[in-house]
């Protein structure tokens, strides 16, 4: 994966497969503590402790078509490569939280990438799911919630190309303010 926004897109697919109806995505850039933290939290069906234990093992997967599962394993490897780690918290019937920590200034840390594209893609493909995206930097906080969008567009489907386009632009603008226009 080229950047962190692609990892987020990939990990969110797990939440969707777990029948989540609300997926929260947090990005915290803490330059002072030299940390970048990604959190993906869902209200999907959750996993039992035994499954959680094996979830970053590439040779473990719940899929039946093939014997490897790379999503969380790749994220785990990327985090470890820059002095971080991945923690998975899950409870059956409640949901799952994946938290990945990266060394902010580590030379091996992938750039954050296009979060606007990741959120737009998720909303376009999963119109029944609500997404809440919160991004924190030293300059401030940006928050986006599909429920706010739904309230405004009422009966218009959220996956309408004009709305998806607007969502991408809205996020891009919001991030420009708190990221100072630079690509982290």
């Amino acid at each position: 994966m080229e950047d962190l926004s692609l990892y987020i897109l990939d990990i969110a697919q797990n939440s969707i497969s777990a029948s989540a109806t609300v997926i929260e995505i947090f990005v915290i850039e803490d330059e002072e503590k030299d940390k970048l933290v990604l959190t993906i939290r869902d209200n999907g069906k959750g996993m039992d402790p035994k499954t959680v234990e094996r979830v970053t093992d590439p040779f473990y997967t719940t899929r039946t078509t093939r014997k490897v599962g790379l999503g969380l394993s790749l994220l785990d490897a990327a985090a470890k490569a820059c002095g971080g780690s991945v923690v998975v918290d899950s409870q059956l019937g409640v949901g799952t939280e994946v938290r990945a920590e990266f060394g902010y200034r580590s030379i091996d840390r992938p750039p954050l990438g296009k979060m606007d594209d990741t959120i737009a893609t998720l909303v376009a493909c999963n119109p029944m799911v609500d997404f809440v995206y919160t991004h924190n930097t030293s300059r401030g906080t940006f928050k986006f919630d599909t429920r706010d969008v739904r309230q405004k567009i009422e009966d218009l489907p959220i996956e309408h190309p004009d709305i998806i386009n607007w969502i991408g632009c809205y996020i891009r603008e919001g991030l420009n303010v708190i990221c100072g226009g630079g690509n982290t």
Partner: protein
Amino acid sequence: MKSLNELEEIRKRALESVNLRKDREGTRVVVGMGTCGIAAGARPVLLAFLEEIKKRNIQDVTVTQTGCIGVCRLEPMVEVYRPGEEKVTYIKMTPDKVKRIIAEHIVNGRSVTEYTIGAEEK
């Protein structure tokens, strides 16, 4: 600066055309978004479809995702389902290929044979 209030305006404009197509069966574009697809570049492909559909104001096409389609080395892969026709699978997709598929296949009904999985296997 963008504000949520703009959405009301977009809604008004969009609804005028959306209502027309409620019960028509349309074309489905399905993008493989497994780990393999995402790593190979499925996201820009999917967004290119949406962008092109928006630009041409095409009304009866939906774009959705699926997991790993099963031939990871040919990702990004896209399946196009047109009502009453056989599924067409496109492989090694790029945003540039999307433009041609929209013009020739989605709009004019002729699949772009050279981009299909059938062409690769020959």
